[in-house]
């Protein structure tokens, strides 16, 4: 069963977090494409080009300027971008946050575990899941 190559947009300001995802993908020997944005504005800039839209977005909840939920709300108001599956990648287990995310229309909510090994496991599952999903191509 072949898995599709995913174009992933990671919105994350923490360099180590970016490295974690990169290394995880490398370690898993998946050839997904990772696009990086340091914050919400940068991500929106990238998403302006509708010809190269990502297949899935990983989003940190706590970001400077535009936070995760605000960013998600912007996407959901956009005619095209609202179809992009967006997954929260966060350490917050705050029930309020989780509720707000699902209320806004998040596609997934992954809590980052303490141990890197566990993190890799979760990322593996998530990427496998999304790579076998049928997605609405813009």
């Amino acid at each position, binding site marked *: 069963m072949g898995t599709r190559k995913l174009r992933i947009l990671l919105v994350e300001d*923490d360099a*180590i*977090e970016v*490295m*974690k995802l990169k*290394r995880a993908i490398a370690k898993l020997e998946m050839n997904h494409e990772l696009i990086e944005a340091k914050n919400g504005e940068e991500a929106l800039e990238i998403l302006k080009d509708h010809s190269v839209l990502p297949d899935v977005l990983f989003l940190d*909840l*706590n970001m400077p300027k535009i936070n995760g939920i605000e960013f998600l709300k912007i996407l959901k108001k956009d005619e095209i971008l609202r179809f992009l599956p967006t997954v929260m990648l*966060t*350490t*917050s287990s*705050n029930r*309020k*946050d989780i509720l707000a995310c699902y209320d806004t229309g998040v596609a997934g909510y992954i809590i*980052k*575990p*303490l*141990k*890197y*090994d566990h*993190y890799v496991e979760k990322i593996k599952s998530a990427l496998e899941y999304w790579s076998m999903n049928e997605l609405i191509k813009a």
Partner: protein
Amino acid sequence: MYERALAREKAARKEAERILEEKSLELYHKSEELRVSNSKLEDIVKERTSELEGVFENIVDAYVVMELSGNVIKMNDAAITLLGYTLEDNFNLLDIVHPDENDKVVEGFEVLTTKGAITDFQIKIIVSSGSIKLVHINASIVFNDEGKPIAAQGIVRDITQDKAAEQRLIDSENRLSALILNLESGILLEDEHRNIVITNNRFCDFFNIPSSPEQLIGVNCEHAAEDSKDLFKDPEEFVSRINTLTRKKEQALSDELKLVDGRILERDFIPIYEEGIYKGHLWTYRDVTLRRKFRESIEAERQKYSDIIANMNLGLIEVNLDDEVLMINNSFELLSGYTEEELLGKKAKEILLTPASQKQLTQENNDRLSGASNSYEVQAITKSGELKHWLISGAPNYNLNGKVIGSIGIHLDITELKSLEIQKENLLKKLEKSNDELQEYAHVVSHDLKSPLRSINALVNWIKDDNEDVFTKETKSHLEMIDTTLEKMEQLISDVLEYSSVGSENAPREKVNLQEVLADIETLLHCPEHITLNIHPDLPTVNGDKVKLQQLFQNLMSNAIRYCDKEKGLIEVGFTENKTHYTFTVKDNGIGIPKEYHDKIFKIFQSLNNHKDSTGIGLSIVKKIVDLYKGSIWLESIVGEGTTFFFTLQK
């Protein structure tokens, strides 16, 4: 001798014959005279009789002649009218006598026949119309020429009406005297010479007079005042007043007399004039002691309440139906800053209340008109312009006929209370906000603290991976220790977050089946092989938040597992119940807790052992949850043998 005797006899006889002859002649003459005069007399009698007959026939009173048997043989028109019978009826008077009177008739006849006449004979008869009449009869016997009684004649008068009127008068007099006698007032009627005409029982009672009212009639009262003056508190005044009254002979009403024994009498003096001539006077005495005392006590009560009203700390205002002020008390003056003069007759609400409160008051007043008492809060502005909050308790005011004539409002200044209330509300809002903020803050902090831990863990991992072959065993163990430390740090952050969350979230209380909760915990805890978990199979269903109840049991049970030092560990969860509470027990056979720490362990960050998993927050969370459910928690423990935690939950 014989011859001489014979001669004498002869001579005497002759003499006797001569005398007899003379006498009989004389008698003849006399009887002749008598006969003449008799016939004259007879004529006179006859004449008189017929004269009388004419009179009788024409007199207004009924005139009846009857035979001695009672058969009527003659009657005039008045008699016909009275009796309703005529001579043609051939009636007998004895037949029309009222049956009750038969004895009386017998007696009457007796008198009539023996004495020849009867007067003032009263008897009831039944006339032809059937009605009963009382008649008065004067009657006499009629003798014939030979002097034999042959008939009786009488005048009959109908006194039915007279008698009835007389009876009515007597009755009314009796009633009047009974009335006077038993009057509540003491009565003394004196004539112009001050002799007692009438008095009554009450008068005698009032002045302790030992005689009866009848005995007093005719007694002179000239010195009565002087004699009885000692009964009065002011004897001289009593005497002089009576003297003045009897001299002036003018009406004087309601004089008050105070008696030595404490009674108070009210006296009227009413002079009686007949056609302008003074005929005496009437004294009337009334005992008004009770009434007076009643009035005094009412007055005292009134005084008491007006004192209370004037001095109470509540502002009182009385208004009429147009909301115009009729009365305010001192406190209301203080409350409003206005004097009574400034408010009297004015519309209270327009002067005192804010526009919004005026509108409200109009509504409240309407309610009150229907007779409802109510209380409400208004905003008022005092004379000095300060805004005040008043609590008004209003009640309709009625007149004696029960009609609403206005209302009375009692005012309490609750400005301070109100500001405290507002303060409290603000404080609560602030507290709620800061609680929310704190909660938010705890989440942010924990997120911000946890993130670097993840980074460190990832970095350490990469270092390990990248240098697998280079690092010594010791270095690797140090890296392991970093991992362990990170885990502990992670746990600490989680626990602090959890602790801060208990009691902040107002999760709805629901029925929680503890059997399910404990089953969940059992799978979560990963209980080691050597420890037996013994959970009461019939744990109840309680009210609460499932997550918190799970935290509660889980923390106690994980502690029990953590501090087990026996080869065969035993943890038992049980419960007992009474009417209001469940008492749960979590019992272990672990290391035990020394007595001196029994209180301390519930305080945050108080871990007795530097256990790798222990953050010292677990029992604080337990305590906080138990407190939240208004239960209590305590423990029994023997060091080296084990510990039992007890906690209660309300049913």
